[in-house]
């Protein structure tokens, strides 16, 4: 009985820390409904595997759980929505912000999915390599290397785009609207 109460308290403590960040994580990667489903699934997993949750900083571990919930959702049960999901995800990951950096957005989208995800975990979730490693279930070393490479790729695309102005206006007109 006592341990039941302790378990509940521990879960509530973890939930306090991860509840909102998990919503952000999921909404960055899925539409509202799927994110809500994945949230309850992820929290249920956290509850069931409470003993495995790192006590010092549970968030990366929980991101990893949420990531698998999303993957399962996509792979399995809700596969029928694949088309719909693609449409709504595209629609719903971007509506809340105006794209004010189309150059970066374009450069990012040219990278592989895994590079993009690394960069997102780094810049959006603000995780460090050892934390990203927990999400992706790999080693901090591997993450550092891959992250460095992904950044380099992104930066080289950005320099390329900056030096060749978007579009084909190489006839002097573009001098008028400098950033």
């Amino acid at each position, binding site marked *: 009985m006592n341990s039941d109460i302790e378990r509940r308290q521990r879960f509530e403590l973890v939930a306090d820390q991860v509840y909102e960040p998990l919503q952000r994580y999921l909404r960055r990667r899925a539409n509202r409904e799927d994110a809500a489903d994945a949230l309850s699934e992820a929290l249920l997993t956290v509850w*069931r595997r409470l003993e495995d949750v790192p006590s010092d900083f549970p968030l990366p571990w929980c991101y990893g759980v949420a990531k698998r*919930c999303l993957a399962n959702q996509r792979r399995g049960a809700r596969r029928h929505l694949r088309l719909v999901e693609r449409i709504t995800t595209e629609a719903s990951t971007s509506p809340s*912000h105006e794209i004010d950096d189309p150059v970066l957005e374009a450069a990012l989208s040219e990278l592989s999915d895994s590079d993009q995800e690394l960069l997102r975990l780094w810049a959006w979730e603000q995780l460090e390599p050892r934390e990203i490693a927990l999400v992706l279930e790999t080693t901090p070393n591997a993450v550092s290397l891959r992250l460095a490479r992904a950044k380099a790729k992104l930066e080289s695309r950005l320099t390329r785009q900056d030096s060749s102005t978007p579009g084909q206006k190489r006839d002097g007109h573009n001098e008028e609207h400098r950033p």
Partner: protein
Amino acid sequence: MTDELRNRLSRLDPMSSDVPTEPVTTESSQQLLEEIMTTPNVEQPGSSGTPNKRPWIAAVAAAAVVIVAVGAVGLLSGDGDPIAATPPLELNAGGEDVMASCIAFGVEYLAPMPVAFEGTVVSVEGDAVTLDVDHWFKGGDASQVVLNAPQGMEALIGGFPFEEGTQYLITASEGNVNYCGFSGVSTPEMRAAFEEAFAS
């Protein structure tokens, strides 16, 4: 340089900290947590464990599904032409869902499906789901279709729940309901894909 890149990237974040999320303290959040904590702590094999409202989201196991058309007219021949006036026609399933390998969804894959209709579930009973056909895209003109699951409801569901009163878009080939994006709850996007695929 790297911090600058990080900052620049973070400005693309659609869920930056100024976008509100639901606090853990709200009533519905607390309700969810409570529900989770009262969920029996037993791992169910194959279950993804959503605590509520998704009774049949289950294994993705390929389903042996039989479609039985009821009503006045039979269902289809292999090439999709309706067969007139055959009594309830049973189209057997060979066991494996032909789409089990889940190729990417695309209108061009949808188009060859011999059976496609939109229907509303009128009953879910035992191992049978009955749909009133709202619209035949291809392959039949029966007024009702029964989806049968000899291997049980979970096999029939194959990943998505059938609920009474909900409208679904269904495709089938060789008597098997196709999952993987080829059947599902009817949505405007999916219907548009069906209309495009089966436009004659």
